[in-house]
């Protein structure tokens, strides 16, 4: 990099944060209250509800991502709606949290779902769980809770969690007797189409999920999803438990990417306490995280093989994945829930004696991944089944907020490990590249994941090598966070960006814990991939985003589909349509 280039980049870097702040100050005037910089380049700004829409409009136009939208219950102060805007794909760590206070009685705020698709599910989630009304939401049905969830009178009894729902019983929502399953609302025009129930039990997924697919012949016209089958109330449970017990709870959010949840939680709490963990712990975390990515991508390869009927690939991938699990068992004591990452470091050291075995098994896994690349890349039937289906263009991916390998397969270079480094991913610890592919179809998602597995092997090698020269300390003692401390942190789960937000109230139990998982975002883009494809391709398209409904289960529905002419609409078009309506 020449001097002039460095200088220009410096200017640009300076300009993003400054530009946004300047614009907000100008727009909000007296309502602009900058609270603090909670972490490096993460700003909290407080304002009033009427500015929510213009801010969202500006942030999305400025190329920002709505990382999450959440509400926290502030007791007598009412509800606090938070809009988390991330700019870290443009500049490292940059992050804005816009906060709005709502009264406890009749909490209402304008919905920003018509502006950005990324807010749609989050708003419905908060309507479900906290009863905040987002006015003019295009699709205010229940997201997590069953459609037949009891209305106000009954729901207030349920253990302290403010679960009242204020909905008009419009066409969206049919209330029936409790315990009876109410299918999704359908207009009479759709009756002539064949409707196929997929799920909640279906061989397509390991987890349960309910899709309702409308097909004409073999072609998918529309997709409707009902989620919430895996809703376990983890965030609520976390708000009832001691800080030291939560890592084990959040690991059990997902059985495939368990350590990355614990790491995200511990990172967030450590950021809140402002403590630095020892280098050795960083390397150990990296090794476990990358092994996890390796086993996740291998199992994905196997499941994807099964989805296109390649049972042999499934068997081979699972057979070789066992070696990763053996390593896990040796290093942590359990095959699936490792329980090794803990506040302030890790619980268990990787001793010198383990290193030869790690290297040996890693060599084996790397060889087999290379073998699968050769096999899959040259297999005519695999190519025929994956190429040119499930297209997700770069603009759609950006609008809908795809993350992780799904976004990277659409040629969007977005990776938390490089944009928001944690553990030992920053350049001073390990060096590696972000893998992207410009195919935008299922095939490129295969390519990205397989190549990423090789990168993971490389990172583990580097970590193991450099871990030898660190001191033996693996854990520092954490203390309790002070009142009002808050932190937000991200990790790159095998499926994409995982986001945690925690707020303390001074006790040993956190006040707010908010989790946004990667599949939350990737599920949102599913209908855009599915519509216009054939039913036989549905499994592999759904499988191609590596859905993890346990992590999060959400839902989407697209209205206004012309039954006789199907076309993929951009999110922006949809948003415009909503605005007109």
């Amino acid at each position, binding site marked *: 990099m020449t001097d002039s280039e460095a200088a220009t980049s410096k200017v640009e870097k300076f300009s993003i944060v400054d530009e946004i702040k300047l614009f907000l100050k100008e727009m909000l005037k007296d309502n602009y209250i900058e609270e603090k910089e909670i972490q490096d380049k993460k700003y909290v700004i407080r304002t009033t509800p009427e500015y929510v829409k213009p801010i969202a409009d500006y942030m999305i136009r400025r190329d920002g991502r709505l990382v999450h939208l959440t509400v926290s219950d502030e007791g007598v102060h009412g509800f606090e709606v938070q809009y988390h805007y991330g700019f870290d794909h443009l500049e490292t760590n940059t992050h804005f949290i816009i906060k709005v206070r709502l009264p406890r009685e009749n909490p209402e705020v304008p919905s920003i779902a018509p502006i950005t698709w990324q807010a749609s599910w989050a708003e419905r989630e908060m309507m479900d769980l906290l009863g905040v009304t987002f006015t003019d939401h295009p699709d205010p049905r229940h997201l997590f809770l069953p459609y037949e969830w009891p209305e106000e009178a009954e729901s207030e009894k349920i253990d302290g969690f403010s679960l009242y729902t204020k909905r008009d019983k419009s066409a969206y929502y049919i209330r029936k007797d409790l315990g009876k399953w109410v299918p999704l609302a359908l207009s009479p025009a759709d009756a002539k189409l064949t409707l196929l129930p997929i799920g909640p039990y279906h061989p397509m997924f390991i987890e349960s999920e309910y899709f309702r697919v409308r097909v004409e012949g073999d072609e998918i016209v529309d997709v409707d999803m009902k989620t919430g089958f895996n809703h376990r109330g983890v965030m609520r449970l976390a708000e009832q438990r001691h800080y030291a017990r939560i890592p084990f709870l959040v690991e*059990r959010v997902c059985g495939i990417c368990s350590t990355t949840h614990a790491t995200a939680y511990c990172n967030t709490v450590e950021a809140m306490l402002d403590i630095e963990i020892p280098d050795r712990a960083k390397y150990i975390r990296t090794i476990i995280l990358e092994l996890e990515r390796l086993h996740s991508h291998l199992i994905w390869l196997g499941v994807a093989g099964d989805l296109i009927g390649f049972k042999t690939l499934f068997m081979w991938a699972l057979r070789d994945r066992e070696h990763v699990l053996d390593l896990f068992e040796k290093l942590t004591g359990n095959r699936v829930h490792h329980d090794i990452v803990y506040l302030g470091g890790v619980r268990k050291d990787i001793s010198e004696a383990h290193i030869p075995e790690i290297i040996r098994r890693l060599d084996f896994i790397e060889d087999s991944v290379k073998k699968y690349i050769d*096999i899959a890349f040259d297999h005519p039937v695999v190519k025929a089944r994956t190429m040119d289906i499930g297209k997700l263009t770069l603009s759609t991916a950006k609008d809908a907020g795809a993350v992780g390998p799904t976004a990277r397969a659409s040629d969007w270079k977005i990776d938390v490990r490089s944009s928001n480094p944690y553990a030992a991913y920053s350049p001073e610890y390990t060096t590696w590249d972000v893998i992207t592919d410009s195919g935008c179809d299922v095939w490129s998602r295969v390519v990205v994941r397989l190549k990423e597995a090789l990168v993971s092997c490389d990172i583990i090698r580097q970590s193991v090598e450099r871990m030898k020269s660190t001191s033996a300390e693996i854990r520092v003692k954490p203390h309790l966070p002070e009142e009002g401390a808050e932190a937000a942190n991200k990790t790159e789960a095998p499926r994409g960006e995982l986001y945690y937000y925690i707020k303390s109230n001074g006790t040993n139990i956190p006040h707010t814990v908010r989790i946004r998982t990667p599949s939350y975002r990737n599920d949102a883009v599913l209908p855009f991939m599915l519509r216009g494809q054939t039913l036989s391709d549905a499994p592999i398209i759904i499988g191609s985003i590596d859905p993890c409904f346990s992590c999060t289960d959400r839902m989407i529905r697209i209205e206004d589909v012309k039954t006789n002419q199907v076309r993929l609409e951009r999110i922006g078009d949809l948003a415009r349509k909503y605005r007109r309506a």
Partner: protein
Amino acid sequence: MVKGKIKLLKEALESSKSIQTLDYPGGDPQIDYSKPRFGSGAKYSHICEGLRGVPQYSEEDCCGCAACESVCTANTIKTEDVNGKRIFTIDLGRCVFCGRCEEECPEDAIKLTSRFELAYTGPDSQNLEKVKFERDLILCERCGNPVAPVKQYEIYSEKVVKNLGEKWREQSKEDIEKAGKLCRECRRRNAYTLNLHTRKYY
């Protein structure tokens, strides 16, 4: 195209030669599974030292301090003080095998074994699901509230005396005899009058 096909067939041939399948319910637990050969006869896969299997409780070692209860992730371990006894109820059906109890137990009375075949039929069969045992408690001499388990009292009063310097040893023995059997509330009330506030020693 051809290269991939050849690789595929080669891999299929190799896989058919080196079968790794275990003879799981039968087989010999001693044979190392990792050497693949036809009909290897091994029973188990990788079972390493640190495997977190079913926790084993040693009633002799347990001092009854209930540190395990306070750290238990899934509320597997529960205590209840009834009639001068502290009753431990351990519901292994809830256990998530995280090993925090093992980490925090001061007396090493809990060990996670490598036993993992826990399938049982019927809700109450075997002693697996519920382990129950009790510790005697010392009751407060004044108000009758529980103070601490007898064993914990013995062990820690010894340790306190041992760890203190020569200078304070006699004094502390006397103090423990005086105030050790009072509950927290009563002790606090009497602390200054008895002249044995802990600050004195440190």
